[in-house]
C-alpha cells in the first residue's frame, strides 16, 4: 500500500509538472508572434492611440515575464505585474482572456465547441472498436493465413494513410458517387459517420494489431487447452475465454488513444467542416490571427490530452501490479 501511494504521488507530481510546463509554454508562445499582435489585428493604418488602447485592454502593455533582457541594461526585473502571472491568475479562476477579434470570453467560445469534438472522438472510438475486434480475432485465430495477412495489410494501410487522404476519398465514394451522406456539416445525425470513420481509421488499425497479437498469445495458454479438452466449441473458447483476457491491454490503449483522437480531430474537423474545437482553432483562431483564442484552444486540447493519458496510466498502474513493478 505504501508503495502504491508513493508511486501514485510520484506520477501525480510529474503530471502537475508537465501541465505547468505546457501551460507556461502556451502562455509564452504569444511572444513568438513577429512584430506586434496589435498591429496584426488592427492593421498597419491603426493610430498609436488605437494600438495603446488595444494593448491596455488585453493586458499587452505589461512586460511578458518576471524579467527581460535588454542589450545595454542587461537583465531587468519587472516583478509580479506581468502577462505570465496575469494569464496564470486567469486560468486558475477559469478565465482564458477575451478574444482579440470578438471580445467574447475565450472560455465561452471553447465550451461551445468542445462537446462536438468529444462526440466525434467517442464516435471514432466506437467505430474503431467495431472494426478492430472482429478483424483482429479473425486474424489471430487464423495466424499466417490469407485472412491474417490481408488484415495485417489493411491495418498497415490504416496506420500509414493520413486522415487528409482517407477523408476526401470517403467523401468521394460515399458523398459524391453513392450520395449516402452529405460531404460536410453536422445537420443530420448520420453526418457523424464519415468524420468518425476518418478519425477512427488509424485507431482501428492499431487495435486490430493489438487484438491479433493478444489472441495469439492467449491461445497458447494452458487454460485454453483445458477449455478445448472440456469439449468447448472453438467459438466459445475464443469469445468466452481468450477475448476476455486478451482485451485487458486493448482497453488501456483505448484510454490513451482518446487524447490522440482529440488532437487528431483538428484535421478531420477541417475536412468535414465539423464545428468543433479544431475548426475553432484553425478558422477563428489562426485564420483570423486571434492569438488569445489560439492560446486558449491549444491549452485546452493539450491539457485534455495530457489528462486523458495520465489518468489512464495512473488507473492502469493502480489496477495492474505487474506494470507497477516493472
Amino acid at each position: 500500500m505504501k508503495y502504491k501511494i508513493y508511486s501514485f504521488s510520484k506520477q501525480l507530481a510529474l503530471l502537475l509538472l508537465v501541465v505547468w510546463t505546457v501551460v507556461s509554454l502556451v502562455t509564452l508562445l504569444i511572444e513568438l508572434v513577429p512584430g506586434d499582435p496589435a498591429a496584426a489585428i488592427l492593421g498597419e493604418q491603426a493610430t498609436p492611440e488605437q494600438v495603446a488602447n488595444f494593448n491596455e485592454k488585453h493586458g499587452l502593455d505589461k512586460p511578458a515575464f518576471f524579467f527581460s533582457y535588454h542589450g545595454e541594461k542587461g537583465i531587468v526585473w519587472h516583478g509580479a505585474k506581468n502577462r505570465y502571472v496575469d494569464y496564470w491568475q486567469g486560468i486558475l479562476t477559469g478565465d482564458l482572456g477575451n478574444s482579440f477579434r470578438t471580445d467574447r470570453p475565450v472560455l465561452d467560445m471553447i465550451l461551445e465547441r468542445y462537446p462536438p469534438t468529444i462526440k466525434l472522438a467517442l464516435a471514432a472510438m466506437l467505430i474503431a472498436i467495431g472494426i478492430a475486434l472482429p478483424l483482429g480475432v479473425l486474424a489471430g485465430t487464423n495466424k499466417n493465413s490469407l485472412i491474417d495477412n490481408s488484415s495485417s495489410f489493411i491495418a498497415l494501410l490504416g496506420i500509414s494513410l493520413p486522415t487528409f487522404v482517407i477523408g476526401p476519398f470517403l467523401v468521394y465514394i460515399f458523398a459524391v458517387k453513392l450520395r449516402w451522406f452529405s460531404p460536410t456539416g453536422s445537420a443530420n445525425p448520420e453526418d457523424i459517420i464519415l468524420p468518425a470513420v476518418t478519425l477512427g481509421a488509424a485507431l482501428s488499425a492499431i487495435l486490430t494489431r493489438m487484438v491479433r497479437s493478444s489472441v495469439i498469445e492467449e491461445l497458447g495458454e494452458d487454460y485454453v487447452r483445458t477449455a478445448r479438452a472440456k469439449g468447448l466449441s472453438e467459438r466459445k473458447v475464443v469469445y468466452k475465454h481468450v477475448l476476455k483476457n486478451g482485451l485487458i491491454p486493448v482497453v488501456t490503449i483505448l484510454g490513451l488513444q482518446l487524447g490522440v483522437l482529440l488532437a487528431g480531430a483538428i484535421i478531420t474537423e477541417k475536412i468535414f467542416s465539423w464545428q468543433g474545437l479544431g475548426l475553432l482553432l484553425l478558422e477563428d483562431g489562426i485564420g483570423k490571427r486571434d492569438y488569445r483564442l489560439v492560446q486558449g484552444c491549444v491549452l485546452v486540447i493539450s491539457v485534455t490530452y495530457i489528462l486523458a493519458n495520465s489518468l489512464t496510466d495512473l488507473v492502469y498502474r493502480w489496477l495492474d501490479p505487474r506494470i507497477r513493478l516493472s
Partner: protein
Amino acid sequence: MNRLAYIGIAVAAVFILTAIFAPLIATHDVTAQNLMARYAAPSAEHWFGTDALGRDVFSRVVFGARISLEVGIIVVVVSSIVGTIIGAVAGFYGGWVDKILSGYIFNVFLAFPGLLLAIALVAFLGAGLGKLILALCVIGWVGYARVMRGQVLKVREYDFVQAARALGASNMRILFTHILPNAIQPLIVQASLGMAGAVLSEASLSFLGLGIPPPAPSWGTMIEEARGFDILYNAPHVLFFPAIAIALTVLAFNFIGDGLREYLDPKQRRR
C-alpha cells in the same frame, strides 16, 4: 528483411530519384497556369490532368516529391543529431542530468500532442519552409533522444566500455568512439519511421494551410485545393494523384522501418 521492406525500399528509391531528377522528369512548368485547360482529364499532354488553374498535376506531383523529401531529410538529420546528443548525454552521465532530461524534459515533449505543438509554433511564428522545419524538429528530436538514451544505458555497461575506461579513455572518447557506433542500429529504424512521420507532418501542416505557402507544389496543399465537392465531382484526379503519392511514400518508409526493426531485433519478428 521481410518482403514488404524490399517493396518499401524500391518505392522509396523511385521517389528519391524522382525528387533528384524532378526538373528532367516534369513535363510542364509547375506554376504555369492555363485557364483554358482547367480540370482537364488525364491525357497524353497532361498525364495526371490539370488542376483549378490549369497547372499540370503530374509535374506538380513530381516536384512535390522534392519538397516532401527535402523537408523529411532535413528534419530527420537535424532532429536525429540533436536527439542523439541529448539522449547520449542523459544515458551516459545518468544521475541528476538524466533525471532532468529524461524524467522531465522528455516527458513534457512526449506529453504534448506532436501535431498540435507544430501547429501552435507555426501559428505564432508564421508560415514558411524554415519555420515549418523548425517546428517539425522541435517535435521530432525527443523520439531519437529516448531511443539513444536506452541504448547508451545498455551499452555503457558492456565489458569493452569498462575496458576503455580502465585504459584511461576520456568520457568524450568513450561516448563517441565506443558507445555511439554500438548504439546506432535502433536509430536507423527510428530515422526511417521518422522520415515517414516528417513527410506526413509536412503534408498535414500544408493541408491545414500552415505549411509551405502556395504556389509551391506541396502534396498536402494540393490535396487541400482538391477536396471541394464540385472538384471531387468533376475532376477527382486532382485529388487522387497527390493522395496516392503521399500514401505510397509514407507506406514505403513505414515498411522500411518495420522491416529493419524486425531484422535488427529477432525478438520482434512476427510471431
